[in-house]
């Protein structure tokens, strides 16, 4: 049983037993409406402040992206893209961070029991206590989100403010967002809201506006409204069709049982061989012949 009533566990990394599943709770989601985002970085500031993160101060690197990438202390960053088509210019600004996949690659890849959990509300959370710092989550993630701290060798990423959601509050970034470019609620409500937004965007000439809730990872609990939903990669490389890498699937899928089976088979084969054939022993005759050969030499 979960100690916090509002957060039951649905999945747990590297665990052979399924957590209790008797209760059902609503799934939550964060909807990031890129068409409303002004790139003010309030979400970044709120995230740093709420989570008591101390990101190092960098330099100007030729872009408004600061820090230039996610780090163990920056769980969300704004990615700015200047998209020119013909005479028109669009400044696409995407808040990057954990997507809280329904089928989380990080959790699949994680070898440490309970280091990554997925709550029944959809939040995928890293449990630092159990993290061993192997970086497999990084390899498992189709969105390149987790970062390993150089200080404590533990993996970090957006928690969707599980501590706030657990007590019925919205994540810090969502609460802060000045323009409701980040909206938080039940996943069903967010999808309904997104549909309205898409209608509005289409009326403003964005024919390909749409919701980004990629089925390749079972859908996500962080979704985007995009003006160009036909080309997600325009938005600083948002994957067009993300899925858990087939290599990770192989590694964390069939390979595990087959490997163990092969090892077990080798052991069992040896055991059976031994008990059926008996030990391979040197016979008296061989011993004698050996002595003869050596003796001939020696004497």
């Amino acid at each position, binding site marked *: *049983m*979960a*100690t*916090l009533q509002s*957060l039951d*566990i649905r999945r*747990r990394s590297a665990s052979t037993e399924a*957590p*209790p599943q008797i209760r059902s709770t609503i799934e939550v989601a964060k909807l990031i409406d890129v068409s409303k985002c002004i790139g*003010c*970085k*309030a979400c*970044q*500031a*709120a995230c*740093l*402040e*709420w989570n008591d993160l101390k990101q190092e101060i960098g330099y100007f690197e030729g872009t408004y992206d600061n820090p230039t990438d996610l780090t163990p202390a920056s769980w969300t960053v704004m990615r700015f893209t200047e998209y020119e088509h013909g005479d028109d210019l669009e400044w696409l600004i995407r808040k990057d961070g954990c997507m809280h996949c329904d089928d989380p690659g990080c959790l699949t890849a994680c070898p440490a*029991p*309970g280091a990554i*959990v997925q*709550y029944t509300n959809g939040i995928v*959370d*890293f*449990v*630092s*206590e*159990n993290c061993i710092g192997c970086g497999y989550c990084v390899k498992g993630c189709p969105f390149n989100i987790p970062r390993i701290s150089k200080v404590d060798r533990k993996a970090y990423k957006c*928690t969707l403010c*599980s*501590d*706030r959601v*657990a*007590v019925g*509050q919205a994540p*810090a970034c969502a*609460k*802060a*967002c*000045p323009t409701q470019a980040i909206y938080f609620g039940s996943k069903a409500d967010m999808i309904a809201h997104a549909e309205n937004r898409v209608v509005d965007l289409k009326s403003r000439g964005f024919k390909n506006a749409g919701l980004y809730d990629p089925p390749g990872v079972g859908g996500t609990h962080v979704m985007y409204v995009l003006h160009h939903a036909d080309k997600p990669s325009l938005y600083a490389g948002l994957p067009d069709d993300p899925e858990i890498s087939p290599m990770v699937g192989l590694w964390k899928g069939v390979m595990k049982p087959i490997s163990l089976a092969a090892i077990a088979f080798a052991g069992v084969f040896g055991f059976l061989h031994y008990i059926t054939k008996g030990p391979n022993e040197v016979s008296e005759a061989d011993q004698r012949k050996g002595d003869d050969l050596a003796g001939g030499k020696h004497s």
Partner: protein
Amino acid sequence: MAVTRRQFMTVSAAGLAASSVGALGFVGAGDALAAGVRPFKLERATETRNACPYCAVACGVLVYSLGDKSKNAKSSIIHVEGDPDHPVNRGTLCARGAASLGYIHSANRLKYPMHRKPGTDKFERVSWDFAMERIAKLMKEDRDKNFIAKNRDGVTVNRWLSTGFFGGSSLSNEAGYLTYKFVRSTGILGFEDQARI
């Protein structure tokens, strides 16, 4: 429910067993959750309503501080977030407001009156009393020397031009009003704030 000593022992033993099992890698889901989710840090923090210090939207903020304002707890601000009731910001904050905790606790906050003597290369800490006495003296000296009671045409003008006062547009109205009274009463005309620049 009262826990008897025997029950307590049993509970402890079970706890011990559980922790041993945990050590072998069979951590219970609940334990993982308890370890994973940070406790909500504002649960009993004191909430104070204030306004963001930066731009003129003047967003409502909730300031959370350590301690319950009891005699032996020194309040220290631990978190700031938007006031959901405030009609303008409705709980939201921008990158400045959301990071304003860092302003309150900035290492560059001034803590003590400081004095730099002419031609030196450092500030020296002084007492408030020294600082205020010195300022009052400097003001009076300059005012008495350079006060203009009448202009060339003999019109009473009662102005003091050799000292100026730049006020801050982030003062409260009350501080601003008292500043106005203080400065105007001296006859200073070089009296400005950010409203113009």
